């Protein structure tokens, strides 16, 4: 009996690992937790690929304004943004509307945007979002 377990245990581990790898291979990637929220809350204006809309909505791809003001992003999501901004040298004045989502979703979205569009490796968490929310202008 003990011998059987000795053989089966490593086999089970290998099997679980194989299923995991199979999933990654067939799905192509492990989906980022912020992707669904981004697509639901942000993509209709900023675009699936963060490309924005002409001169109406600013892009997120390599957006210098977002990279320089990463600490302000939680408050923009929570309260919107109602003044003109310059993104990569271009002026945008369409107001951004507030989104009602919790701090976990907000952190996921910011991490998704950072990684996908801003090429920024810093990860934030819900506590960081809450702290920023407490100090919104």
């Amino acid at each position, binding site marked *: 009996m003990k011998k059987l377990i000795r053989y089966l245990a490593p086999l089970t581990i290998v099997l679980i690992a194989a299923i995991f790898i199979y999933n990654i291979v067939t799905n192509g990637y492990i989906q980022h937790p912020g992707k669904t929220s981004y697509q639901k809350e942000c993509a*209709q*204006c900023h675009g699936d690929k963060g490309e924005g*809309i*002409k001169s*109406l909505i600013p892009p997120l791809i390599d957006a210098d304004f977002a990279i320089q003001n990463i600490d302000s992003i939680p408050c923009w999501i929570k309260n919107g943004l109602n003044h003109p901004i310059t993104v990569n040298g271009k002026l945008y004045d*369409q*107001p951004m509307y507030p989104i009602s989502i919790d701090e976990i979703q907000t952190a996921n979205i910011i991490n998704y945007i950072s990684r996908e569009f801003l090429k920024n490796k810093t990860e934030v968490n819900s506590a960081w979002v809450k702290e920023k929310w407490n100090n919104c202008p």
Partner: protein
Amino acid sequence: MLPVYGTKIYTSKVVDGNEVIDSADYTIPPFSFVNQDSVVVNNETVKGKIYVADFFFTSCPSICPKMKKEMLRVYEKYKANNEVIILSFSIDPARDTVARLKNYSGKLGLENSSKWHMLTGEKDSIYAIAASFLVSAAEDPNAPGGHVHSGNFILVDKQSRLRGYYDGTKTESVDKLLGDIDILLQEKQP
């Protein structure tokens, strides 16, 4: 063959002493608005043209940017075809002045305002034309931006008949619209 929407209008007349029932398709009633270049756009402007209509407002925070992005696909595809035009009616005409519409169309990069008219006018006339397209538009203080409106793109043929409704926030639905415009362009005129 695309469907024709709206209730048919029946009229009776007497021919050789017999009553005859005549039917006519529902058509968009005459209208008159002003576009982003202060040019009057009315039923004469759309006569013999296929057009796509939608309702929006420039300060609309929710579905409008996506709708405008999708409408840009219609604009780009039929840029050189003068049989197809676009009418975007502002449901916030008090704020959406000609200057504001001009600014907005500039942000979308429109060079040709006779291809894509952004329209303003009397609020009541805007709501009335929305009703005649069989879609909704209303003020609602609880909605984002203070107005609610349908996200539909409405396809109208050369005889001002309603031929299709599409979700202007969905890329697949607008793909269907682009295909249906091509079908309408092939349709024989009476």
